[in-house]
């Protein structure tokens, strides 16, 4: 196999301190963009999902508009969304870094996914609890934070780690606007003469390690939640 020979020959040239530093910084950029976008997106998604509640927002037009936003953003490919954000920044004349543009695009996408997820969490709590709270004269936002959310977050949390992992993978598309994350770094190294096999092979492994460990953490957290919920339901020690 000529390719494997070549791989063994170029590996010492590729896995140097400076190349690994370069890839490590790119991996940090990938993490930074996707996780910051996830956090901001979940914040925005929480506002959207909450304003879509009949009990919180009285105007049907606002609820409808937010439902439209959620539905629309989920149906735009991330690459196209990225291009829209990129050129919208250009049009507005705001001179922003690629980092800001990338985070904005990830946040927009995440806000729609998060809003759907949080809405599912809200819907897992029986309607009667809202009614009971309103009969007891508890204001809507207070019943949301004190009654609904403590029950809904068990439904909300597991998919959110899946979203974070999927965002880490989707940010590979951000390389298309020139932001230096893992995929862009691999393309740069490839253009500097290293073989595609070693460049893309290395970042495939890097992506795998990052996203596998994240989903592992998510699964452990989920299992812990489920057993805890069961213990509470069986009348054991409460949270």
């Amino acid at each position, binding site marked *: *196999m*000529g*390719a494997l020979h*070549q791989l063994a020959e170029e590996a010492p040239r590729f896995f140097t301190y400076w190349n690994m530093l370069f890839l490590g910084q790119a991996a940090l950029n990938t993490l930074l963009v996707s996780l910051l976008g996830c956090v901001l997106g979940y914040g925005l998604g929480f506002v959207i999902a909450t304003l879509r509640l009949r009990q919180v927002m009285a105007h049907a037009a606002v609820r409808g508009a937010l439902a439209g936003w959620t*539905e*629309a953003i*989920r*149906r*735009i*490919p*991330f*690459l*196209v*969304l990225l*291009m*829209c954000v990129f*050129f*919208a920044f*250009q*049009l507005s004349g705001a001179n922003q870094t690629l980092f800001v543009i990338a985070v904005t695009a990830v946040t927009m996408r995440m806000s729609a996914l998060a809003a759907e997820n949080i809405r599912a969490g809200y819907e897992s709590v029986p309607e009667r609890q809202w009614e009971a709270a309103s009969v007891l004269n508890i204001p809507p936002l207070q019943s949301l934070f004190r009654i609904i959310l403590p029950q809904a977050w068990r439904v909300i949390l597991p998919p959110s780690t899946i979203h974070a*992992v999927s965002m880490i*993978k*989707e940010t*590979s*598309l951000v*390389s*298309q606007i020139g932001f230096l994350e*893992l*995929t862009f770094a*691999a*393309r740069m190294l*490839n253009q500097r003469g290293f*073989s*595609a*096999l070693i460049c*893309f*092979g290395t*970042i*495939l492994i890097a*992506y*795998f390690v990052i*996203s*596998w460990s994240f*989903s592992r953490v998510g699964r452990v957290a989920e299992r812990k939640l489920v057993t805890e919920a069961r213990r509470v339901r069986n009348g054991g020690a409460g949270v």
Partner: protein
Amino acid sequence: MQLQYGQVVGYLPDFLIGAAIALAIAFVAFGFGLVIGLAGASVLAYGSAPARWLVRAYVSFFTNTPQLVQIFFLFFALPEFGILLSPVQAVLIGMTLNAGAYLTEIQRAGFRSMPQAEIEAAETLGFTRFQTIRHVIAPHIMKALYPSLSNQYIIMTLGTSMAAIFGVEELTARALNANAISFRSIEIFTLTAGLYIALTIIASALLYALGRALFRVKASVF
């Protein structure tokens, strides 16, 4: 700055052809992915331990790495082994392998929802094998799987936009070309976004109707 959609509506027929290509790519990759997924799920349900481990490694690798980088690898690294793929081939193979991993996970749930007692009841009542599958097994499995399968199809339709990076002339690639000619960037990409929204809403509606007619599934799609 004025938005001038008048200058970009002329691209619409061209974009619609691109949309059709996107749907076709998603359809082909989904079809082959379904076969791979069925094989994978069968191995996970009935296979030997090493075979199960292999399938799990395959699923875990493809679901934990970005589809874009997988296709990059196929397109740029395989030539070093003497395998030269055209852009369409690379995209189709990459999307198929990726879909196969997700569809293995999805179809695994189907094996768990096999209604054993009802299959025996159907046999006792003299159902033919086809009738058992059509009236007993398929509705059960489909009730569990149909929403996830439809979601996967929609996700893959959106995923075809990645093909633009490799020069496959689907919707996003045509938008990038039109952008390079006209410089009406924001108009072109919002129009493209609107087309994707319309495309997937139509696909969702069709999938919903199909599920309702064939398998009596009443789940919301995407």
